[in-house]
């Protein structure tokens, strides 16, 4: 039976090959496309996590919904950070404060987003310090230093060494503080380059008159998959402290995470439609071959073969074709993924070095990542679609009457 099925498929090599190739090709594209997206998502999420959050974040209760440093903060941040670091020596623990304000120079004023960080610790997690185009990154303990996006510096008409004044809402009234520009960064993201200012945590604490407070204490882990475990551990070790919200990264950067999930879902819908089209191709080919073999089937039925056996024969053909195509497609997709994971796709010629996606700046050199679950699911889906495409032709064959079938021209 199986032999017959295979021989039948090999009978018309060209057609079987076309069928196989189109299904395999589609699966390869699906796998390649998904893995490339997966790689990009991972990069984006990693960027988002490292620059604005952490795998686990500890914030003042209510911060996520209302990021107002005057209302929500972590008190005793230094001690908290040390405690958390002690429990998780492998993680990198950062303290940060985020605030908004007005940055003025002699020439101009711009509303900015300020990140206050522990400058040298920050280097372990983000690469902002590598994007300095003029001047230097903040030094340890420099509470008067500020690093600006280069576009922001242009707007303010300042350069390295010049002074700027930050004005913002303070506890009672308006707070203002002098800073000197230490360096300019170019990230490639319009948001950052035009509106980002980085100061030391100490500087922000003076500005806000909040000694030893921070908006966020974040943990950055080697292995993102361990997030849930670490989150639980942190929650339990800090359980008795009030006024804190402790979040995993999926919640902390939920906008970005949701974006990637929605994108995935949309892509999956497209891939499903493509899969249906592939199934229709197979349906067409197998139906054609069934029609061609009507006389032969008539003889077999005349000899006493039952319709159900005949249906099974055709379904087997579909299954073999599907399996072969799926395996080829999986191999092809894996091969392309391996290449893209290594060499990547370089769009820098088209788009410059960095591009902005959903507020995050990433390199234009995209790499694929192995989304094994999706690959397995796609392959299984390919086989299932092949089989289901054979159902109609098999059913048709089963309804043949031997005498009429043999007379068929």
């Amino acid at each position, binding site marked *: 039976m199986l032999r017959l099925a295979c021989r*039948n498929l090999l*009978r018309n090599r060209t057609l079987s090959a076309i069928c196989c190739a189109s299904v395999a090709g589609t699966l390869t594209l699906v796998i390649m496309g998904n893995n490339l997206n997966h790689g990009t998502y991972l990069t984006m999420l990693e960027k988002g996590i490292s620059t604005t959050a952490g795998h686990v974040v500890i914030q003042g209760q209510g911060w996520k919904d209302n990021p107002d440093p005057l209302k929500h903060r972590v008190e005793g941040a230094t001690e908290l950070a040390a405690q958390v670091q002690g429990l998780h020596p492998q993680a990198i623990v950062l303290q940060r404060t985020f605030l908004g304000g007005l940055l003025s120079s002699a020439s101009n004023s711009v509303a900015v987003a300020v990140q206050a960080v522990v400058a040298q610790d920050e280097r372990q997690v983000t690469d902002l310090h590598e994007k300095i185009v003029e001047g230097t990154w903040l030094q340890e303990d420099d509470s008067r230093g500020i690093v600006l996006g280069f576009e922001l510096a242009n707007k303010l008409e300042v350069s390295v060494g010049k002074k700027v004044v930050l004005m913002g809402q303070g506890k009672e009234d308006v707070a203002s503080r002098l800073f000197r520009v230490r360096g300019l960064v170019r990230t490639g993201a319009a948001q950052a380059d035009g509106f980002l200012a980085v100061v030391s945590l100490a500087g922000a604490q003076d500005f806000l008159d909040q000694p030893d407070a921070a908006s966020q204490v974040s943990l950055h882990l080697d292995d993102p998959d361990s997030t849930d475990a670490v989150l639980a551990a942190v929650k339990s070790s800090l359980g008795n402290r009030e006024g804190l919200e402790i979040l995993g990264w999926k919640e902390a950067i939920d906008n970005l995470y949701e974006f990637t999930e929605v994108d995935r879902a949309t892509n999956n819908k497209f891939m499903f439609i493509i899969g249906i089209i592939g199934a229709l191709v197979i349906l067409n080919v197998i139906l054609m071959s069934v029609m061609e073999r009507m*006389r032969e089937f008539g*003889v077999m*039925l*005349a*000899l*006493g073969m039952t319709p159900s056996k005949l249906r099974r024969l055709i379904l087997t053909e579909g299954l073999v074709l599907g399996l072969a195509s799926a395996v080829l497609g999986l191999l092809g997709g894996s091969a392309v993924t391996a290449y893209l994971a290594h060499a990547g796709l370089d769009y820098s010629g088209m788009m410059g070095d960095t591009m902005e996606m959903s507020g995050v700046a990433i390199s234009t050199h995209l790499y694929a990542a192995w989304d094994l679950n999706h690959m397995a699911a796609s392959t299984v889906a390919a086989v299932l679609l092949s089989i289901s495409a054979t159902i109609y032709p098999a059913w048709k064959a089963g309804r043949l009457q031997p005498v009429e079938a043999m007379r068929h021209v």
Partner: protein
Amino acid sequence: MPIVQVQDLTRTYTQGALKVEALRGVSLDIEAGEFTALMGPSGSGKTTLLNQIGALDLPDSGSIQIEGRELAGMSKGELARLRLERLGFVFQAYNLVPVLSAYENAEFVLLLQGVAPNERRSRVMSLLESVGLKGMEDRRPAELSGGQQQRVAVARAMAANPALVLADEPTANLDSKTSEELLDTMQALNRDHGITFLFATHDPRVMERARRVVTLVDGKIDKDERR
């Protein structure tokens, strides 16, 4: 008891708006060991009668019995089983599955019956030998001549030890020499192994060899000659 008992068979086809009365009350008995030909011009109903006896089609009225079993009233599945187990077929053309070898074609029926591989092998090999195709069992139909293909069909038809082998115009596509050879083979099988053959044919060469010729005209038996 006769292998085949046909009583007052009628069968009418509708082709579009046309009604064709293919058989109009045919009665016939066939005994074991016969080498019988059904003759008649096109449209006489001989093929229809053969199909009826071959359990490929059911009558509108009348009865057919194969080895005492009444066909009318059988389900399609039962008919198929009957065909598989008790009947052998040789068709005019396209008998064989092109992707299978001669051996595989011949064993096809045995495969469907679920016969064990050893038994299949010995039976098929001896059958192929008896139709004169020893050594050619691995050839595909494309590698066999028309006559050789028909012989494979004969071997297949006999594989399950049927009560009756039905042959519908088996020589129609063959040249005279090959026809003679084929018929010689079938005659030998009939003589040496007692296999019952029923032909539907125009071919005079068949008629020469047939020991009984039943002539049909317009759906009725006209003559029934034995020699």
